[in-house]
């Protein structure tokens, strides 16, 4: 009974410690998307490099593809850009770029300077498609499966780890299924 007097506060303190520890290791900027496992929101937008030509999400039905949200004003997009270039070179999966809230001329200029890793890019100047996809921090990358379901979302720049451990294995598994 005497031991309980010390053990109970110790137990409470340990529980508190675990909560704080887990809380600190979470990134509050990463809000889990409610769109995972749901059909990708449809859009039909003008292509960046082919004015007048459009691209719709339905065009890639039956294929696994990535949607990468980028912009010429986006600083952290520069971090992931070399990785996207490598990915494009490997030619594993089509990557569609969503040029988010950007002037088309600026977007094209940026891709000319830094290289274009995208199968194609579409223009989302007023950010409506971005809102439909729940975009709040550029860059963001989505994995869409053959049925058009969003399977994964990366918030912030793609890293070597996230690419090799999450995105590419998922893409391969989805391509086989």
């Amino acid at each position, binding site marked *: 009974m005497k031991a309980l007097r010390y053990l109970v506060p110790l137990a409470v303190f340990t529980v508190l410690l675990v909560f704080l520890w887990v809380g600190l290791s979470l990134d*509050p*900027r990463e*809000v*889990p*998307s*409610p*769109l995972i496992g749901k059909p990708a929101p449809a859009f039909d937008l003008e292509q960046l490099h082919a004015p007048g030509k459009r691209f719709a999400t339905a065009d890639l039905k039956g294929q696994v593809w990535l949607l990468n949200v980028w912009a010429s004003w986006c600083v952290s997009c520069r971090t992931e850009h070399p990785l996207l270039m490598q990915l494009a070179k490997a030619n594993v999966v089509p990557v569609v770029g969503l040029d988010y*809230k950007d002037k088309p001329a600026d977007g094209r200029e940026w891709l000319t300077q830094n290289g274009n890793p995208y199968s194609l890019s579409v223009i989302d100047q*007023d*950010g*409506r498609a971005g*809102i*439909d*996809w*729940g975009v*709040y*921090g550029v860059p963001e990358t989505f994995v869409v499966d053959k049925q058009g379901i969003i399977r994964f979302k990366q918030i912030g720049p793609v890293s070597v780890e996230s690419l090799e451990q999450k995105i590419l294995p998922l893409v391969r598994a989805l391509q086989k299924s």
Partner: protein
Amino acid sequence: MIVRRLLMAALACAAFAAEAQPADPALDARLRKLESELRCLVCQNQTLADSDATLAGDLRREVRALAVAGKSDAEIKDYLVARYGDFVLYNPPVKSVTWLLWFGPLLLLLAGGGIWLLLIRGRRSRQDTDAPAAAAGAPEDDVIARAKAALYEEP
């Protein structure tokens, strides 16, 4: 002909007035209240009403468009939750994952009350064994007697 032209002019004026007249105090008040219950995803501790982030501006635009289209507050919230999750709501809904959030304080209160009761009971039973006479007759006299004894007791 003149009547027709006049009518056209009137219509044009009406259309212009409708476009240049965003002053709808009731709608503004409703939107301000609604936006103060929604979180900006970019500056996460600001409401949609307070935030200057571009996304907040865009979302305010969408919210206004939905409200003008006759959607209810609940429908507008559903629209945002479908895209950004429950996180956009400052007032989280009661579901199985938020039970701890909603009922945790009550649990803590109950636990505190329980501990308090246990302490009180422990003190009372100790008093009972210390001074069984206190329960019977005049307790004040007994307490005073004990205090006096403690005060004047020679060391």
